[in-house]
């Protein structure tokens, strides 16, 4: 997590669950991954003021 950072890890995690386990279409899986990580990042980082781990990309 400290290498990749929170946002890319969550995007990847949701993508893998939806695409590999739940057999969602590729584009839909990527889209949900981005939406979910973005939503979680905004809620926890800006609303609840929780310092989430950053990776090499600064995300």
């Amino acid at each position, binding site marked *: 997590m400290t290498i990749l950072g929170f946002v890319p890890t969550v995007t990847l*995690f949701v993508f893998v669950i*939806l695409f590999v*386990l739940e057999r*969602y279409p590729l584009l839909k899986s990527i889209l949900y991954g981005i939406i979910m990580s973005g939503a*979680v990042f905004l809620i926890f980082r800006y609303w609840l003021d929780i310092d989430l781990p950053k990776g090499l990309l600064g995300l």
Partner: protein
Amino acid sequence: MDVLHNLLHGFALALTPYNLWMAVVGCFFGTIIGILPGLGPSATIAMLLPFTFGMSPVPAMIMLCAIVYGSKYGGSTTSILINVPGENASVVTTFDGYQMALQGRAGAALGISAIGSFIGGVVGMFGLIFVCVPLVEFSLKFGPAEYFSLIIMGMLTVVFVGGKSIIKSLMSAVIGLGLGLVGSDVVQGAPRFVYGIPELMDGVPFIVLVMGIFGISEVLESAEEKMKMDSIRVPFNKLWPTLSDILQSKWAILRGTIIGFFIGVLPGAGSTLSSFISYGVEKTTSKHPELFGKGAIEGVAGPETANNAACSGEMVPLLGLGIPSSGSNAMLLGGMMLYGLRPGPMLFKTNPDFVWTLIASMFIGNFILIIMNLPMVPLFAYTLRLPYSLLYPAILLICTIGVYTLNDHVFDVWAMLILGVAGYLMKKYDIPGAPMVIGLILGPILEQSLYRALSLAHGDLTTFVTRPISAVLLGISLVMTVTVLFRTVRQVRIQAADDSMMA
């Protein structure tokens, strides 16, 4: 007068805008959690606990308690609309609730369930006050020996009544007690069972354990089942039961309230057992038992009332003695302890504002829930359309972030995931998680009480039987154990006789 004065003061504090808002938030989330199959109140409290650390104890506990009783309201919705209970206490509601829905009477079933839950919840709160206050006065006489015996009795009751198998419940409780030993020794402060892992010096973190055992395991189990939910639509204008429905249900609601409250007071029995007993009583006392299972409104009204009244009853041992009687109450106890509050008789003396505000907020919460539930059930039912495949990654993320934010340690996240897999396996093998959590919470208190009692008695073990209250509590524990052993041996013998007859 003292009780009335304290209660009114509690209402004044509970009605402050922030506390009221927390009750509304808790009721809303509780209802949603109750509606969503596969996510129980224990898991939700476990998930939300880390995020309440920034709040003061009163609003945080108001919200967490509202989640517990809100989930009982919401649990009936899925039972009636899709024949899938939202939580364990609503299993019975599927028997007649879903049949009513199939007959086009879903609105009446949902309405009578909300009305019954409201009456059960509010009357149960009066019961809580009337039973809890004398109980607290009595338990102020307790010393360490009495606490030791009380915890033994409470844990045995949870083990004997809580799960499907006594051996599995006992196993879970012993593992919990064992986990409670990890950390620092209560007497000398020396490290114990930490195996050189510095993160274990403060013991197995309660939140990490409950998030794993309740949160992650429930998600894994639900994801495996791949739930497909197809809800019966309920129009907004057909939510109220008719006058004849209400009149037909009045005795079921009354009986459900009494049964629910008194079953709820017993440690380990809880709302699930109360709803089953209420259903059985309604069927036995009905003039038309043949209608049960085919859409009898009493079969919805009684159990739904009972499970909410039990929710109030469960607060008696929790607030009065500090003994949780169910998984969700163990979460509440753990939450209070994280805030530095120790439920039990002294809490009424040291933090009366906290206790009475919490009790008052539960009265208010029941009003919020009936206002929220009756007109908004169709809206809540929309959440059933949310695919679980999108919901469970979100729940896993919330759990992970919640655990990580506790100490900013990735160790906690790994521990949660490992415990989650352990919890999933426990579910697969029908090993209940609640005795483990109760063991983890009560284990250190049990050890401290044992140490203090023996110190006061200069190491004399007979102190536990020479002190009258302690002796009575241990006597009850012994009678329970002997009864259960006798019953088990008899069942084994009958089974063996049946097997030899078959052979």
